[in-house]
């Protein structure tokens, strides 16, 4: 399989997750969303790899780590077409596509400086308004924003 071959170009993974088809310019956002810098297992990050679909792409391989749906779906905010391959004993045992979240809790900053979430010690919460355009709405100040313009907490 093509994905396997590409994965092997970087290095073989015994058990863990390969996150593929990340648009190159979103790679580091995905790295932060998945909190990769705090991981202690073996991580390989591929940047500007050749891709037939995307031109250039990013790829992340994390050993001995299997992401929860909640963690996976966080990625949808910046890179909605990413594929996650779960690897066990060098084989892809599952392919998962990320899903756009209906509710985005705790990791996106509200762009409105007068929003209560930017001024009180509390979590943020957004609702997905329009999937196509990527419009989300702050649960608190009710201001809408586009996921292109978000800042992560």
């Amino acid at each position, binding site marked *: 399989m093509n994905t396997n071959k590409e994965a092997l170009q970087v290095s073989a993974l015994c058990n863990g997750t390969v996150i593929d088809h990340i648009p190159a310019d979103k790679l580091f956002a995905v790295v932060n969303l998945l909190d990769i810098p705090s991981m202690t297992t073996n991580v390989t990050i591929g940047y500007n790899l050749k891709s037939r679909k995307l031109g250039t792409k990013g790829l992340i391989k994390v050993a001995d780590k299997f992401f929860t749906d909640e963690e996976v779906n966080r990625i949808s905010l910046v890179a909605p077409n990413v594929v996650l391959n779960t690897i066990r004993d060098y084989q892809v045992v599952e392919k998962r596509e990320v899903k756009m979240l209906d509710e985005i809790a705790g990791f996106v900053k509200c762009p409105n400086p*007068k*929003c*209560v979430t930017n001024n*009180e010690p509390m979590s943020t919460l957004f609702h997905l308004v329009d999937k196509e355009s990527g419009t989300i709405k702050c649960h*608190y*100040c*009710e201001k*809408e924003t586009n996921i292109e313009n978000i800042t992560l907490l």
Partner: protein
Amino acid sequence: MENRSLVSINDLSREKILSLLETAGKFEENPNRRLLAGKVIGSLFFEPSTRTRLSFETAANRLGARVIGFSDAATSSASKGETLKDTIMMVSNYADLIVMRHHLEGAARYASEISPCPVINAGDGANQHPSQTMLDLYSILKTQGTLENLHIHLVGDLKYGRTIHSLLYAMRHFNPTFHFISPEELHMPEEYRIFCRENNIPFTETTEFNEEIIAEADILYMTRVQRERFSDLMEYEKVKNCYRLTNAMLANSKPNLRILHPLPRVNEIAYDVDDNPKAYYFQQAQNGLYVREALICDVLGIDVE
């Protein structure tokens, strides 16, 4: 327990709005009903708002409740750096209901989520001020006999006017036709025009404000064009008197026309309009009392006979 807080007009269904307005009508017939004897209402005004605070506190008093609270954040422990959460948790130990005005947008939603007692939003920054919208609706219903199929002319600052935006959302249930009348700089924001299109609400837009345009109106909702909203002060000087209503401009208006204004007024309505029976802004403010009595009873789950 179901959270009965009132945070945003957008949370209210058509049925709920109509039922609240009916209750407000009962309070207009008799505003003094001791339905809240023995209750304590926390009136937390983190920013000053004399008009809204007095209206809510009068409503509480006429219902027989006692009121605790503050009228300025400087006299509360917020000035010592206490978080909103801590203030709300503390006051909810004492009060059966919190009425809150706060300068931060979303503060009321947050308070309603953490408070064990219900919260009424008395304005959260530029976001929501549902009791103002309810009194606007009450005034429209009372003067027109219906909320349905009306021509509503919104005049002045349509860009920043919170009352304008909330009224627009609330009226979506009642098949209105809107007329947006404002200077270029203070045009209705695109999101509200999209909202109108999505909800099949017809609207017109113009920068002209004259006798001819007023002649079609059932409701003329005036707002203040504020100097500080303009990046170009030359522009302000040019338009500041264009959106000023004078009595002469009402010569050809419909007999049922009423003029509303959220107040305070500066010079956008000439004093000679005040004596015209179509001027309704002072009664509009008075209606706030009946509406707020109805809202307080509703969030506390008290039936009004």
